[in-house]
């Protein structure tokens, strides 16, 4: 086992401040329960500090965190006794207008793989080849999945 790196209060504070919102947003895509979100936060950041010496640059860190968070969320949803239907009603933040509500609801109802790509592409602004690298998938696969995700969204909300 790799010896745990030296972790100071400051380092933890800075990292959490920097990435907490992003991790929280990914959690929002998958999890509705506050306790689940807490679990994911703890596990993601524990892993993060464990590997803190292996990151090459900022971009790498961010991509790594995205990937780990996705996986943690999916793991949590995989467990049979935690399987829950995502209920859209208890979203904490009110929608600005009905169109936004429709869109967000539609995105949340997408299959897991499509949600990831939509998030990474439209929110984080990564390009498809970058996403393919993060997700360790073929570039064309990601294109196809994005196209399918968009088709599904169009069917539900009309124009995006």
């Amino acid at each position: 086992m790799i010896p745990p790196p030296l972790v100071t209060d400051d380092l933890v504070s800075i990292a959490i401040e920097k990435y907490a919102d992003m991790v929280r947003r990914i959690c929002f895509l998958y999890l509705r329960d506050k306790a689940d979100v807490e679990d994911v936060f703890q596990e993601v950041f524990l892993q993060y500090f464990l590997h803190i010496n292996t990151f090459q640059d900022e971009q790498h860190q961010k991509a790594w965190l995205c990937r780990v968070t996705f996986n943690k969320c999916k793991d949590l949803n995989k467990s049979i006794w935690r399987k829950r239907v995502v209920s859209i009603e208890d979203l904490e933040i009110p929608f600005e207008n009905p169109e936004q509500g429709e869109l967000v609801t539609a995105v949340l109802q997408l299959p897991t793989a499509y949600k990831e790509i939509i998030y990474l592409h439209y929110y984080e602004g990564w390009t498809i080849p970058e996403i393919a690298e993060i997700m360790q998938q073929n570039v064309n696969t990601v294109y196809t999945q994005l196209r399918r995700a968009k088709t599904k969204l169009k069917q539900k909300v009309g124009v995006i």
Partner: protein
Amino acid sequence: MKDFASYLDKVKADEGLKEKTKAVIINAYTNQDLQSSRIDSRKGDGAMRKLMGATASIAACLMILIGGYAYYNTPVNYVSLDINPSVELGVNAFNRVVRAEGINADGQALLKQNRVINVSVESALQELVQAAVEQGYVAEDGSTVIALTALSDNEDKAILLRDRTRDRVQLLLREKDIEAVLYADCSNLQIRSQAQDMGISPGKLRLISMMQSLDPNITVEQYRGARITEIISKANELLQSSGTAGIQSQEYERTRAMIMAADQEIYQNRQRLQDQNRIQNQYQNNGQVQAGDQVQNQTQNQYQYQNKGQVQGGDEVQNQIQNQYQYQNQLQDQTSGEQQNQVQNQYQNQIVPQIQTQSSGDQQQNQIQNQTPSPTTQEPEQNRVKQGKN
């Protein structure tokens, strides 16, 4: 997609969440005990999950095995065998015997000597019937009834089971040359529970209840120890006396026909064997028969007819018989010409059926025997006379 992005912008980790996470992380990395456990937690989870998976799959396998065994071990149909030893076999869905129960003491003894569990129902019955024959439960006069009753909730299955078992036992009886009457019937499982309460076999109860419908005075107790043969005879008696009055259901009609047929067969078997025995005994008394097998009996019968014909110079049939006898003699001597053969062949064709009808055995035959003196002494003389005539 702007709406989506603007909405996500508003999603932020609240301070409480950040603080809590921070505390946990710092705690994990400073506290040695926690450190190893928390950081290794992933590994632990994986091992745990594997263990749980293995346990679950083993449990599933066990359940399938236990379930399969329970399914195998549950009798769904029953066959009741009544000779006098009454035995009930529980048959599972795969047509194997999984329960064997002696209803009376003889049945229990029979089962003790013959292990029939886990064999097919046909072989089990074959074995039991054979054992019963060997132990003398089946009388040699052919009057014994072997009753098979197939019991199932499904009528088609009951009929199928009845036919299969009946065919097999019939085959056995034919192979081993056993004279017995086979009575095969089927019914539902309801009668089985009733029979169990009364402590008799379902096959017996079915016949007794049949009799009760004809004569309300009959009780189960009367026939508890009776042999099936007796029950069938009594049932037929009742049926004869009641005639066709009061017949309602098809089911009843069928049972009635079966009982009558079985009784008829008993009667026939008995008669046939009695006749055979009588003939045999008489010959033995006269000291004529050395080995009492049937072929000899038949030839002797022929001799007797011929003798009688000669002595009394009787009717045409007897004359024909005489001629046949002559023919036989000539064949032996090898003196006969072709023309003669033709004539005699004609005779023989006419004679043979007549002889058969007569020698198939009844009173007339016996009379003949009584009247006839010993053929052994007369034979040579007669031959000479006949040859002389020719």
